[in-house]
């Protein structure tokens, strides 16, 4: 039983982690918090459903197309809304307000397009369960965990060991200096937003077969993902996944061995204590004024 609870904690934790990665990337690139992240997950889930179930494309192709669409959505969001506002030098919180309105739009247009019904996602793999250490685990759950870790690794390699990744980090640190080195900082920022959206959408398409497809899927996950990002150390790639998995485990474990009624309260309570005691996150990132 314990092992199964841990696996479930890992699954939901990895999803939090993927969302948290998006938050972290955006924070690094633009110093912002994007409210719409959770709804991009929902969008990804619905898009994946459309390609896989309605159009009958193979799962891997649906995944790639969905991620690509989300990528361009993220880039567009940055290019036409976020950067426009930042160029006007407005208070950060107004940019956050813009993401709030994007959230309203996304959530309601998903409903307008796909309708309010819950949709079912057919199984992706021919076999239902995988047995590990004598415990049955849904194949898609295992796939979700593996994919999250692969994505995290890829991102880590991409950010630290490729020219473009270096460019992205450089432009986040100092746009002027990056420009002087021949890097187009606004393009790099756009790509960061694109990657963040693609990650969220991928999380959505991974979740579809496990949880089904419905409009509010991304709401709570989005908020928890934000919490995970901060727990891990806001702006830190590995920290985001670690924070996500930790939050997922705390949640499932406290529900299983403490109280399911107060599960969220326990998770948020720990988060508060964590913030007050160690505001720099697990992987130190600057959070205090001094």
């Amino acid at each position, binding site marked *: 039983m314990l092992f199964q609870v841990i696996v479930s904690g890992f699954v939901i934790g990895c999803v939090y982690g993927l969302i948290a990665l998006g938050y972290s990337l955006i924070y690094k690139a633009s110093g912002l918090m994007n409210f719409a992240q959770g709804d991009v997950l929902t969008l990804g889930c619905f898009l994946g459903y459309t390609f896989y179930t309605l159009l009958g494309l193979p799962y891997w192709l649906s995944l790639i197309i969905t991620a690509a669409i989300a990528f361009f959505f993220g880039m567009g969001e940055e290019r036409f809304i976020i950067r426009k506002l930042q160029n006007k030098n407005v208070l950060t919180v107004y940019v956050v307000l813009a993401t709030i309105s994007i959230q309203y739009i996304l959530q309601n247009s998903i409903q307008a397009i796909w309708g309010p019904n819950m949709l*079912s996602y057919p199984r992706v793999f021919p076999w239902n369960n995988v047995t590990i250490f004598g415990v049955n685990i849904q194949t898609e759950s295992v796939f979700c965990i593996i994919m999250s870790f692969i994505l995290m690794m890829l991102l880590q390699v991409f950010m630290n060991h490729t020219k473009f990744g270096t460019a992205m980090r450089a432009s986040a640190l100092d746009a002027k200096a990056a420009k002087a080195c021949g890097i187009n900082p606004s393009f790099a920022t756009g790509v960061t937003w694109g990657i963040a959206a693609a990650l969220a959408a991928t999380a959505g398409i991974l979740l579809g077969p496990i949880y089904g497809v419905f409009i509010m899927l991304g709401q709570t996950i989005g908020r928890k993902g934000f919490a995970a990002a901060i727990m891990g150390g806001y702006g830190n790639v590995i920290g985001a996944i670690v924070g996500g998995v930790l939050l997922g485990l705390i949640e499932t474990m406290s529900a299983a061995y403490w109280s*399911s009624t107060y599960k969220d309260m326990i998770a948020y309570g720990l988060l508060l204590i964590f913030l007050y005691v160690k505001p720099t996150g697990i992987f130190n990132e600057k959070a205090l004024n001094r």
Partner: protein
Amino acid sequence: MKRKMLLVSLAILLIASVSLFANGSSESSDTYVIGVPQPLTGTNAQPGACALNAVKVAAKQFNDAGGILGKTVEIISYDDQGSPEESVRVAQRLVSDGVDAIIGSCISSAVLSAGQIYENNQIPTFGTGTSPTWMAQGWEYLFRACQNNDFALPLVVDKLTELGVERVAIFAGQDDAAVAGVNTFTELANQAGITVTTTEYYVEGNTDFSGQVARIINSNAQVVFISTFGPTQPLIARQLRQFGFNGLCFTKDIYQVDALQVAGAASNGIAFAYPYLTYASIDDCKDPFIKQFLEAYYEMFGELPVSDCAYRAYDSMLVLKAAVEAAGTTEKTAVAEAVNTLSGVQTLAGMQDFTYGDREGLHSFNIFVIDNEQYITFDEWVGSPLYNEIVSQY
């Protein structure tokens, strides 16, 4: 330039809203206006939208047949978002719009917060939720033409006693209807000598219940009573089966056909007491009266109602029409009084009878169960391989 245009359009919008303010009640003698406050966006958009559609189906049928007492039926609907705060403003607005009757909402906290307003303005109202709480407030103008969970749960507990079940675990949401279901069920189970081993709650919006499921299974329960609504049903069904729980499950009200599709084989062995079922295709439906409704619904919207809230709202419309015709007038107080005299009204849920004096139309229900991913009645199920497998445990 763009800014100016936007400013102008904002100003126009404001003026439009001011003009809305000026519009008073538009009472006219040749229409019968029905207000439909339902959650049309957010978590409960599906039941709300289905209910609204069903009201439209009924209204069309009535109007095609000459209206109610010769008056054309007109519908005004607003999105109450299932929120107690929004629903107060929606209710007051419907009152100002001069509606003759209300069908909604299917969210009980919305009914609880709006009920007093309808009561004060003496508008006959049909709630479309299944929670017992709002009927307990004693509002004279509030009726129900669908299931009251408190009436159906004794059937469930009787069935459990009959099967010899001794230990039941409860999994529940934290909305009003779900909690009310838990309370009633616990009380009935205690009376019947059935032990409730554990009661596990989840928070709205969560999708992972492995912790709760682990506790339920560790509590060594034979049956799980699931008190939830909407997209959570298939999730909990799947996670229970995933963790190796193979016993019988009872849901507090219907386990909808979309849940059945999402959860697939995990749905087998889930039972519930309810007046009717939802269908994935018209052909699955054997009841001629429901079939007729489904065909009309399909014709108007190109899809079948996934949520049974459509049935609830449609039945409410049928009862409302019967009441107006019995009263012989559309005058609100007379209509409300007439509802209490109705009996033998043919609806999707069978015959409705309001003469019990509790303002409720339904008092008898069937127990359905899912086997082979199909709905069958419990009586039909007895003796099947899955029945024997599950019941032999008890």
